[in-house]
């Protein structure tokens, strides 16, 4: 979807302002928002692409005015509602009210090391040979799906070059809609700055993205 999350190339946000000696979390609740997001993922309540889709589906004014962890908390609420984990009344009360079925297995501290360190790779066995090879010119499709996608708008319609064949990976467009992992070949595609931003742009800038095969076509 063309949501507020897709902000590559937008103007007006001002300069980047690095913070000296920035703490990992600025408020105590931010740490909790962070940890809750991890454990709900590990508990397999939903997949990461579905979570991202929900987050970017927020109305752009809301998305753009929430802080980073504020966005996470807001998205958690919406996911809990959508997946039947909590009712609006419960979120309001801050307690479980409705009768509920016990979770299959709670995520425990023992899982933590596993959560943090254990590989959860996104690569999958290939269903067939890759369509493109390194050095091929490809065009990022001009597509504007209403569902989740990881092809940024600023690359759509533009011609780049395959820089690397990454492997065969879970396809977020499908996974976010709970339509299965539907793995596809994943490529690193390199674009010239001129191609993306026009003749007046810096000639020495190149931008690389990862693009799944369904995002690409022969130019």
């Amino acid at each position, binding site marked *: 979807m063309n949501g507020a999350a897709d902000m590559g*190339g*937008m103007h*007006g946000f001002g300069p980047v302002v690095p913070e000296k000696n920035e703490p990992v979390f600025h408020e105590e609740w931010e740490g909790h928002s962070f940890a809750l997001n991890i454990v709900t993922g590990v508990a397999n309540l939903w997949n990461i692409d579905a979570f991202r889709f929900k987050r970017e589906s927020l109305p752009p004014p809301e998305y*753009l005015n929430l802080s980073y962890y504020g966005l996470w908390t807001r998205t958690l609420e919406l996911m809990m509602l959508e997946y039947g984990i909590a009712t609006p009344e419960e979120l309001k009360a801050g307690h479980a009210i409705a009768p509920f079925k016990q979770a299959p297995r709670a995520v425990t501290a023992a899982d933590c090391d596993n959560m943090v360190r254990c590989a959860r790779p996104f690569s999958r066995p290939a269903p067939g040979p890759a369509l493109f090879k390194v050095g091929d010119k490809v065009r990022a499709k001009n597509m*504007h799906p*209403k569902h989740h996608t990881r092809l940024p708008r600023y690359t759509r319609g533009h011609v780049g070059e395959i820089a690397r064949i990454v492997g065969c990976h879970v396809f977020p467009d499908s996974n976010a809609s709970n339509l299965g992992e539907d793995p596809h070949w994943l490529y690193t595609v390199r674009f010239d700055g001129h191609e993306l931003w026009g*003749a007046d742009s810096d000639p020495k800038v190149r931008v690389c993205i990862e693009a799944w095969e369904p995002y690409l076509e022969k130019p």
Partner: protein
Amino acid sequence: MNGGHDIGGMDGFGPVQPEPNEPVFHSQWEKRAFALTLAAGVAGGWNIDMSRFARENRPPNEYLTMSYYQIWFAALEAMLKERALVSDDEIAAGQTLKAPKPVSCILKADDVARVLYHGDPTERETKTKPAFKAGDRVRAKMMNPVTHTRLPRYVRGHLGTIDRVIGCHVFPDSNAAGAGENPQWLYTVRFDGGELWGADADPSVTVSVDAWEPYLLPA
């Protein structure tokens, strides 16, 4: 600029919600903000493209959170301050603290009807010939100026057809910057929905924009 205002094709804002029996203004301050903008424009001497730039030139999160007349009013304040006609402390105090600067003219009640009736035509005489004629195929330039422009992002890089040669009009990109009217040929350019929004788009939709010659390349 690729600001918060350039939202053609963005998702996530939800449905259009027409208001039954909507009043012309929703509150007293909206009336005043509207009239002040028109009247102070005469004293301030800025042009419409400068006003537009003053409105769009703010962080997108702010732009998208403010109501229409809030944006107008914020731009009015900014333009008055930029020209040192009014200062921050005066707005805070709600009264004049510094002597007025001389201005060439102000809008009198007696002139309102005439000024509104005459408007502010933007067509200009020219000796140049238009580069394109109706039916020509053109490509909207891939350009991303950080200054004011009226070429929406969603048409950039796309192929369209000249529908009509409108005439030679004030060029907003120059006019907004105070760099003169720099009149340019203006065309209505029609784009197929499929060209703008991809193969899945509704084939019965076309979108037309008015584009000045410097926005276009022969296809």
